[in-house]
């Protein structure tokens, strides 16, 4: 079969920094091809070279048997190569149909008057063909992220896309939405559309993809058929070494009760939530997205008001009305969305690291720069943060290193209770393991840890107990002793334990 896209010996460097060194990448019609590699391996650079955002220094790109030199993503789109970014390009105030036909609306002659009926009928037919359950007249802003993503896919297909490049498409989706996306991808395959699937989630890749290509440090490592490889082999290709146990072992004696929550209720979000965590314990929190698991933790952290309920720390009742008070009680929270809520992207690694405890590093309001420096260097070293200088803006770091900065920022205050919301989202395998080790180390030092995660293997690999949240209620609290994914999923979808 003639490849749809054939990239050979691609070279690209920025100054002295070689980011792609002889990379081959081939996409066949109707295949789902995973592009994998740690953050900084060159995946996004490769895609940018393909779609003309960057000019290549060497190598050839052949699309449909013709060598191409795109200068703009629009030119790639004309050849049917469409990128669907993690940040969706959907206009919330327009309808589904208006979004699909944005800029290409069917008009009456040259008047600029839109033929709405025709546009909606055409949109409906595209949606039907892709098996998407969407009303063309619905406002896009009312739809979930998963459905908005469907709009983008439908838009791409309506422009005759032959290859969709999806960057972390499931990062913000619920389990059900992921299944819906996979069924759309399977429909696309049958219609001969290729999908390049960029993700860190191994389980998904082994479910939906046909082939996997791996990059490491700008080098092309190889392409494998999913049927002929396994998880360990791919990880080894990505990190270049045996990574050993995926979840590091932990030996901790669990101590006294640190945090107890009783009957926490916020109308419409969660009700009657009671649980406790002990020193040295990791409580995994599972549940579908939208189940209220994040909101519960935000309420405990003082970032969200609640109606009723009591919180006890070390057996004493506490009132927490703001994140500041939570911090004063020794609670730290690592939020799910590190760019929006965790980091100040314009600021340096060093300024981000000391933000929550700056007042302790200052005398009469004046920052003691030598003290600050010590703290910064300690945590950069401790967490193995890879930054050429502490003064580098944090936005210049890879996802994994950004997440380590978020960790460092909170570790610097020696938290007694640590709430983690999706601590390894968008983080590559190597950095993931380092983060797990930090979590274990903190538990060993006696912190009580609450870890929300959508990745069930992570929940099972890290937790002592697992709390499952379903529609704002605690559905089950399970000892992690021979626990399996199915039991958790059953509880998370409202089934009995």
């Amino acid at each position, binding site marked *: 079969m003639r490849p749809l896209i054939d990239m050979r010996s691609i070279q690209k460097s920025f*100054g002295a920094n070689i980011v792609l060194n002889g990379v081959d990448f081939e996409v066949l019609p109707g295949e789902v091809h995973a592009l994998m590699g740690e953050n900084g391996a060159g995946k996004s650079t490769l895609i940018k070279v393909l779609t003309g955002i960057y000019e290549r220094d060497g190598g050839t790109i052949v699309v449909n048997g013709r060598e191409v030199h795109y200068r703009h993503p629009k030119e790639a789109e004309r050849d049917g190569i469409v990128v669907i970014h993690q940040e969706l390009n959907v206009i919330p105030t327009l309808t589904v149909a208006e979004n699909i036909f944005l800029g290409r609306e069917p008009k009456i002659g040259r008047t600029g008057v839109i033929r709405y009926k025709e546009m909606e009928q055409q949109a409906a037919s595209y949606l039907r063909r892709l098996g998407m359950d969407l009303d063309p007249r619905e406002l896009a802003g009312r739809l979930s992220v998963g459905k908005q993503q469907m709009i983008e896919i439908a838009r791409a297909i309506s422009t005759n896309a032959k290859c969709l490049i999806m960057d972390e498409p499931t990062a913000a989706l619920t389990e059900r939405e992921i299944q819906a996306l996979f069924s759309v991808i399977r429909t696309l395959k049958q219609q001969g559309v290729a999908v390049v699937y960029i993700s860190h989630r191994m389980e998904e890749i082994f479910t939906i993809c046909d082939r996997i290509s791996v990059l490491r440090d700008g080098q092309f490592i190889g392409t494998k058929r999913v049927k002929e490889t396994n998880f360990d082999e791919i990880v080894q290709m990505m990190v270049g070494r045996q990574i050993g146990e995926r979840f590091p072992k932990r030996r901790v004696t669990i101590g006294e009760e640190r945090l107890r929550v009783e009957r926490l209720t916020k109308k419409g979000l969660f009700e009657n939530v009671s649980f406790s965590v002990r020193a040295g314990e990791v409580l995994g929190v599972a549940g579908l997205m939208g189940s209220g698991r994040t909101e519960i933790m935000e309420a405990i*952290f003082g*970032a969200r008001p609640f109606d009723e309920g009591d919180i006890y720390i070390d057996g004493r009742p506490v009132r927490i009305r*703001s*994140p*500041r008070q*939570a*911090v*004063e009680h020794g609670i730290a*929270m690592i*939020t799910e969305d590190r760019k*929006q*809520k*965790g*980091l*100040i*992207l*314009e*600021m340096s690694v060093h*300024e981000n690291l000391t*933000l*929550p405890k*700056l*007042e302790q590093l*200052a005398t009469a*309001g*004046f*920052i003691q*720069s030598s003290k600050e420096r010590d703290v910064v260097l300690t945590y950069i070293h401790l967490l193995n943060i890879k930054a*050429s*200088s502490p003064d*580098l803006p944090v936005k210049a770091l890879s996802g994994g290193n950004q997440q380590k900065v978020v960790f460092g*920022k909170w570790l610097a205050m020696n938290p007694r209770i640590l709430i983690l919301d999706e601590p390894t989202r968008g983080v590559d395998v190597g950095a993931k393991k380092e983060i797990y080790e930090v979590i274990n180390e903190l538990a060993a030092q006696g912190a009580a840890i609450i870890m929300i995660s959508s990745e069930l293997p992570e929940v099972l690999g890290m937790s002592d107990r697992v709390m499952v949240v379903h529609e704002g209620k605690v559905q089950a609290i399970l000892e992690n002793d021979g626990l399996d994914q199915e039991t958790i999923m059953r509880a998370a979808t409202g089934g009995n334990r």
Partner: protein
Amino acid sequence: MMGAKRKWDVKKLGPLIGLFLLCIVLSILSDDFLTMDNWLNLLRQVSINALIAFGMTFVILTGGIDLSVGSVLALSSAITAGMMAQGVNGFVAIFVGLLAGAAMGVLNGVLVTKGKVAPFIATLATMTAFRGLTLVYTDGRPITGFASDDILFQMMGRGYFFGIPVPIILMLTVYIALYVVLKKTTFGRHTYAIGGNEEASRLSGLRVDRLKIYVYALTGALSALAGLILTSRLNSAQPTAGTAYELDAIAAVVLGGTSLSGGRGWIFGTLVGALIIGVLNNGLNLLNVSSFYQQVIKGAVILLAVLLDRRKEV
């Protein structure tokens, strides 16, 4: 990384280079431009806008804006002048005037943080209301002839200290103090953090609302200080004083390279920005350019500076 750093430095120097070029051109065109007298006069004029713009820099760094500075200036000046006209001691009247400015700033800050009103709207409303209060208080007439014997008050606008006009000394003192605050203190760091990402700052345990209220209060107090200098120089408090001053202050901040979206900027840039506006005003006067054309040229310079700044970011 080194390349990135160097580029940033060049970007920072842009406003300063602009100021130098402007001075060179004006010194060629006019013999009077580079004289000591002219510069002392120029700097004295600049000090009023610069003081307001220093406060505005903080507000803009937090991602806000303060349109009420001109009205705060007028109302606090009227309060001080009114007190002195009734025989209150100059020191007390000055203190109350500054306090009134700070209190008006606190009101702005509370509206923005607790009332959750967009800064543009909140300060647009207080700009109108404070101006109205000034007109009510003064009955629409200037307050004059109140401080003929108060040395302290006269010094503020007209005095000299080692041959340097007091307003210039006030401007430089405030500049140095605020430079240190931004560079060395938790207050300064938190100001940048809140402008960079308010939500992340709140979740990091910063007292976001309180800091914003302080920042608006600072701007109010500095506007009042600028108003006292102006009132002292004119020896009268005009109910319409400070009209449209917010525009010159915002222009100075923007010319200096501070981002209107918050989180990025520096106060040295604002000083340079205020000087550019001052030099331009002064130079165009020396060259006898009509005041109508002066506005056109000022607008064009601001636009040019911002456009050049944009190009560098691409």
